[in-house]
């Protein structure tokens, strides 16, 4: 049993500074779960609570069937990979990896076998006699992962392990972590990051966390689900805006009426669209927000039903695709991600259509209205 269960978990720093509020979460056996969120949302704190490095919380944390709230970190059968690697500078790579096993009084032959096995998996066998200062960033990260592997933990914990690496190495190490997950299918993994790309690429499950006032108002967890669930069916404006790059376009509008095909809304630009959501609870004339991702906007030759027509304010070309910036009537421009050069330039007026199943509608409180069709 390597599942992790958090029930009613709250944590404050001092008397008046809550960082985690009302977390109820189930991570299944062998699942790769990513804690994602903006700075200060408490994702690392939550991870450290699972590790046993952060105490003084209320609620209950279970690993498998065992409540671990009062269990020392070393006895929780977890292993952690730190953002800055946390290798012992005065020990060789071998000793770094063997240290925990020696502390646990593991037999010498067993230590040797486990360290060599981990070194082979991570391809760091030639580095075993080196000191950490003689290693590159990527090598240090592998050693840190190796130190976790040799302990054969039930749970691997990763605290932003790739954020100190350059972009190319980050992509490479990301795939290695995915491979590690395949090699240890029984172990659950919790991975903390603020990088949505890493989260989307690695996660079986994403836990997106609120920060600040949203955390106080709605609790820490904004949404839990599979990566594509969060991408295609965000629960609220925060989730919709956090996932995706460039971020989702939000266009203010007014609810007109619920029709069979969906909710009819009038945008500030004058267009009327039908979004396939259930707006039955909305009052006609109520404020709503239409959400549509830049990559879902496709250029069309002329204005028509279900299209958005706006003046082009700027175009950024990236070769394979371009970002077309459109005047949204709000301080934030609307962005369309189009193939090639987009065929438009600043000063033009351009029309874009969005597949209606990719449009989202949020009520006055920023809560997403349910789609009429499932994914």
């Amino acid at each position, binding site marked *: 049993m390597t599942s992790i269960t958090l029930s009613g978990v709250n944590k404050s720093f001092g008397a008046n500074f809550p960082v985690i509020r009302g977390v109820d979460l189930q991570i299944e056996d062998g699942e790769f779960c990513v804690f994602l969120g903006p700075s200060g949302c408490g994702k690392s704190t939550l991870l450290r609570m699972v*590790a*046993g*490095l952060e105490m003084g919380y209320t609620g209950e944390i279970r690993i498998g069937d065992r409540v671990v709230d009062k269990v*020392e*970190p*070393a006895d929780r059968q*977890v*292993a*952690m990979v*730190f*953002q*800055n690697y*946390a*290798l*012992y*500078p*005065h020990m060789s790579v071998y000793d770094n990896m063997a*240290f*925990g096993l020696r*502390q*646990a009084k593991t037999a010498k032959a067993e230590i040797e076998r486990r360290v060599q096995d981990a070194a082979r998996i991570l391809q760091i066998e030639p580095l075993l006699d080196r000191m950490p200062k003689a290693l590159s960033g990527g090598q240090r990260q592998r050693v840190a992962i190796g*130190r976790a592997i040799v302990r054969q933990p039930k749970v691997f914990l990763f605290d932003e392990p790739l954020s100190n690496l350059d972009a190319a190495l980050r992509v490479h190490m990301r795939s290695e972590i995915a491979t590690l997950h395949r090699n240890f299918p029984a172990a659950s993994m919790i991975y903390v990051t603020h990088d949505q790309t890493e989260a989307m690429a690695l996660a079986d499950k994403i836990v997106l966390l609120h920060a600040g006032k949203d955390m106080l108002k709605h609790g820490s967890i904004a949404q839990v689900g599979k990566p594509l669930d969060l991408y295609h069916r965000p629960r609220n404006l925060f989730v919709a805006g956090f996932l995706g790059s460039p971020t989702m376009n939000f266009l203010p509008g007014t609810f007109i009426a619920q029709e069979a095909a969906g909710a009819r809304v009038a945008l500030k630009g004058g267009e009327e669209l039908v979004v396939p959501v259930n707006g039955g609870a909305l009052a006609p004339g109520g404020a709503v927000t239409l959400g549509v991702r830049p990559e879902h906007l496709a250029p069309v030759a002329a204005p028509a039903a279900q299209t958005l027509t706006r003046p082009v304010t700027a175009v950024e070309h990236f070769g394979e695709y371009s970002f077309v910036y459109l005047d949204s009537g709000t301080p934030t421009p609307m962005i369309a991600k189009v193939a090639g050069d987009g065929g438009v330039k600043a000063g033009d007026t351009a029309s874009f259509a969005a597949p209606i199943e990719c449009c989202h509608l949020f009520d006055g409180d920023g809560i997403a209205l349910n789609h009429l069709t499932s994914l």
Partner: protein
Amino acid sequence: MATSPITRATGRVAVPVLGLFWLAVTTVPFLFMVMTTFKTQQESYSSSVWALPEALDFVNYADVLSGPFLTYLKNSVMVVVISVILIVVISAMAAYAFARMRFRFNEALFGLIVAGMIVPIHITLVPIYLMTRHMGLYDSPFALIGPYVATSLPISVFILTEFMRQIPKELEEAARLDGCGPFAIFFKVFFPLSGPGLSTVAIYNGIMLWNEFIFAYVLTSSTSTRTLPLAIWDYQGQYTSNIPAILAVVTLTSLPLVVAYAFGQEKIVKGMMAGSLKG
């Protein structure tokens, strides 16, 4: 901040000039001391103080070494080595607690210990003398160890606490995950990683205690129990002093320190600078 060419040129000239001046200030007395040791007592009175010795005469060294100098040396080495070991171990353990453990009155206690640096040792002489007599340690080299350790702890704890605060917290957490308790974290992670800080404390205190005079003067009285700084007294009479012999004692006494500082100065400076610069 941009500097003008004139400022840079002035700096290029002024820094070496000031350096040479300071070198002269520190070296000339040392050279004077060594030079005088080769003069006879009579010569030291009759010739100019800056005159070179007439011959390289080692008679003063022979005279010093034939006396109780080696007994003083043995006592000094024993007292300083034991004291420095105790200072390093005790202050490192205290520093780890102050730097990393959260407990009530942590900051207040740290402040109190550091405040110990401003207590002049002279006002403690009488109580320490009485305590030493009461404990039956008077006129023994071991009488010095307690006061030496106690008076050296404030600066040592201060240096090591600042040093240990800079050791990344994640190393401690990694050790906890690896199954270490506070003692294992201290001895297996913090102590080895505090090498430069420990060297600073050891060398700094070694120098201070090697030269320590007042406690040695108050707490010991026999030739067999005294330490090197008191050796000078053997060559000082009521009406006259054998200055070349005294300077020979000082030269021999300072030699170990000169050697230690030559090899350890980098570590002393590094330890002293701990916390002053962002890594």
